[in-house]
């Protein structure tokens, strides 16, 4: 009998167990299963030893160019930021990695408290009263937010700014259309890159349940949440998709009266990992908490009066409400959220601000330098650490060639916007040094 390192059964074990059960063979246990194939015919390679598997996967890894070998000027929702060693060392602890959902609270206090603290930290960043224990990613979190505006307002139309991350918009459309919810796009101002307030006013009427903007938006421009909120009727739900590092520097959406704040949390100590897993965050006000999707952790006491934590308001969820649940979400991205909490603990009150400040200052320096070289910025609105500029008709080819020089250049925008040929979205983080900018300027000229 072939031996497998993850399976303990000896031949003797199998014999004894079958005898206890009263079965002649393993096949006896599968009598109800139709024999539609012979297991030997499956086209899957035979089992392998650890060293062989390792070398196969390592050889695949070698066929990539990694961010930590390049000067990275690309963001668009996923950011190359520094992750202190302590963050992934703590996050990699086995009782965090190999635990399940905290259904048995008494033996899950580590998970529950870590997520409770996560909820507190994100609520601080978003300026909201309550944050759930995570969603899959920023896009699905925004989609769920728009569904929530419909539940709260009982109106089946939502508005979305056309300068929101295009993949977030596509995801939202996929989520809401089957429930007969209409998505209407609001133009952006071609000069500032911000949402076009006149177009917003024109499209707002009493059939609109919610309005979504991104902060900073996909072009990196900081939306004026105050001006937007002033335009919205009181009962229209105001949804803001935000970048968490930007929120260290920008006034939080909660301060401007946002009803739901969501976003992609990867930038908080999670690896880019080809786009996943990061996590989505989801904050709202206590007034609407019963309409919120996802798990929520609350503080309480045990029978001895000791402080402890449990999952609360579970009646919103699928395992209780089934087809009437606020969402079907079950598994979330708890581990990524805890990793973010460890990151936020490590960077702390001052560190996240410094990360944001450096990223922003570097972007502004780069923008200035590009302008001096004759490149024009596409929008005039205020930006933080991302901006769009005119990189020239032949930029896409240049962009690919730059990789050879160890530069992952600004993202060609044509991928998302047909009318943006030759435009590029530059992003800088705290990883960029002056010499990296010099190298980019030389390569792009």
């Amino acid at each position: 009998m072939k031996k497998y390192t993850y399976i303990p059964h000896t031949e003797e074990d199998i014999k004894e167990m079958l005898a206890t059960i009263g079965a002649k063979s393993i096949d006896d246990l599968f009598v109800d299963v139709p024999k539609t194939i012979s297991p030997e015919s499956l086209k899957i390679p035979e089992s392998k030893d650890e060293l062989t598997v390792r070398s196969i996967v390592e050889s695949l890894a070698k066929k990539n160019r990694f961010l930590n070998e390049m000067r990275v000027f690309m963001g668009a929702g996923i950011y190359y930021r520094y992750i202190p060693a302590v963050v992934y060392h703590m996050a990699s602890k086995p009782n965090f990695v190999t635990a399940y959902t905290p259904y048995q609270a008494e033996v899950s206090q580590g998970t529950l408290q870590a997520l409770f603290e996560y909820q507190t930290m994100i609520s601080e960043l978003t300026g909201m009263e309550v944050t759930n224990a995570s969603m899959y990613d920023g896009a699905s979190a925004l989609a769920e937010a728009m569904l929530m505006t419909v539940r709260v307002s009982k109106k089946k139309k939502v508005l979305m700014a056309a300068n929101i991350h295009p993949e977030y918009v596509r995801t939202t459309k996929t989520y809401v259309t089957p429930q007969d919810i209409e998505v209407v796009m609001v133009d952006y101002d071609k000069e500032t890159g911000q949402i076009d307030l006149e177009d917003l006013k024109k499209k707002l009427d009493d059939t609109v349940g919610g309005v979504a903007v991104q902060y900073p938006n996909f072009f990196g421009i900081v939306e004026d949440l105050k001006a937007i909120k002033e335009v919205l009727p009181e009962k229209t739900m105001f949804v803001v998709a935000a970048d968490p590092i930007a929120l260290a520097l920008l006034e939080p959406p909660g301060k401007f009266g946002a009803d739901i704040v969501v976003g992609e949390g990867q930038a908080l100590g999670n690896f880019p990992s080809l786009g996943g897993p990061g996590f989505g965050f989801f904050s709202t006000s206590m007034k609407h908490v019963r309409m919120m999707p996802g798990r929520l952790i609350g503080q309480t006491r045990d029978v001895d009066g000791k402080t402890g934590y449990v999952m609360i308001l579970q009646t919103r969820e699928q395992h209780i409400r089934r087809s009437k649940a606020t969402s079907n979400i079950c598994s979330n991205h708890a581990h990524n959220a805890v990793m973010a909490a460890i990151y936020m603990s490590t960077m702390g009150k001052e560190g996240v601000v410094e990360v944001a400040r450096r990223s922003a200052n570097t972007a502004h320096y780069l923008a200035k330098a590009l302008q001096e070289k004759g490149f024009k910025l596409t929008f005039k609105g205020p930006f933080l650490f991302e901006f769009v500029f005119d990189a020239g008709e032949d930029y896409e080819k240049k962009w690919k060639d730059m990789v050879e020089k160890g530069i992952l250049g600004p993202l060609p925008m044509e991928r998302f916007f047909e009318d943006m040929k030759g435009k590029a979205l530059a992003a800088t983080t705290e990883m960029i040094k002056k010499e990296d900018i010099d190298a980019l300027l030389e390569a792009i000229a």
Partner: protein
Amino acid sequence: MTIFERSKKGRRAYSFPEYDVPEVDLKIPEHLMRSEKAELPEVYEVDVVRHYTELEAKNYSVDRGFYPLGSCTMKYNPKLNEDMSALFRWLHPYQPEETIQGALKLMYELKEMLMEITGTDDMTLVPSAGAHGELTGMLIIRAYHLDRKDYKRSKVIVPDSAHGTNPASAAMAGFKVVELKSSDEGLVDLKELEKELDETTAAIMLTNPNTLGYFERDILKIAEMAHEAGALLYYDGANLNAIMGRARPGDMGFDVVHLNLHKTFSTPHGMGGPGSGPIGVKEELREFLPVPVVRKDGDRYYLDYDLPKSIGMVRSFYGNFGVLVKAYTYILTMGRDGLKMASDMAVLNANYLKKLLSEFYPIAYDKDGKRACMHEFVADGTKLLKETGVKTLDVAKALLDRGFHAPTVYFPLIVHEALMIEPTETESKETLEAFANALKEIVEEAKKNPQSLKEAPKNTPVRRLDEATASRKPIVKWSRK
């Protein structure tokens, strides 16, 4: 103590290199800049280490011991998987495709192997979890019917033993959900099904083996009935660990199959996620898959966005790639033979444990304790409750005191005092026996001193928590008193 209480102004756990970029005016309007900093903790590195080490020690986990949560497949999570996934951390999703060929190849090969295991013709790796996959699958089914101008199909049939995500996902995809009452054997009742199946049925969602641990032996007949009525058959892959490498949902007539890589393919659950929920489909549903789909052209791997009839995107980027690397590593390690062995031993373990328990704990839908189950089974505490007043919840808590994680409790809903037990293949005979002995001890204790069980657990970091007050007066974040 919370991390906030450890905080002291002036401490720090981060350090930065010297900043050599000249200062530039950000020119952001004053009212958009933060007036007060976010109140995050101020601690030094040792605080971070001690705090999270203390928290982590309060968790039970698979690495710590037996975790028999039914339908959750808490098998061992191989360490090699973690190391291999770490190799691919630093990739940006929008890098030029030429620079991520290794990652794309891995995704392509994983997809091919999962299609082979499930007997499907194409697959998306994008969905982030089982429920996310279910939603994706139901949207594909919706798109299929609409594309055929078959507009009446508004209803989805779900057995009463199904996971809550099934009805929730179907509802999210815009369908009306009809619950199908199980037969007295705990299986799909063909007569009931026949009554419900009509020209408005879009799909039947089935978990097979079902949540009671029994295989729907009429599956070929069910598929025939569904297809005859013009409906599609959806496979909830939560329980694939029972049949992997032996039988394929696609061959049984399922049109859409979801997988939980975090169950069947050994990727860790991480306190509730991230998971990964690929969706495999039959030929006629390919064109509706969400974008992007990983494909191959000669030696080149690429992401295909050109699917005019696609349901669209279900999240950003390409899915939980980091999780996919772990599943890929697992399948390479186990191979065709090992995957079958895993299912065989998972089913052997469940039947062995069921046999041990049936001596003193009734098994649901199995009067004489002789019915073969698949990879899991449901023990029924109704008799114990009647005789001793000890609830299934008390039994669960008493198990925690004895060093085991409790099984899934009060599910499936059709067994009132359910203990749903899935041992998985990675547990030894000795572990199963120790668990059976602990449960036996608890049953004996219930008869002698039921009160002591109602006070359990006693040996855990906290004891039973006041959940009612926590939900009545929610405290959802820390605040300085």
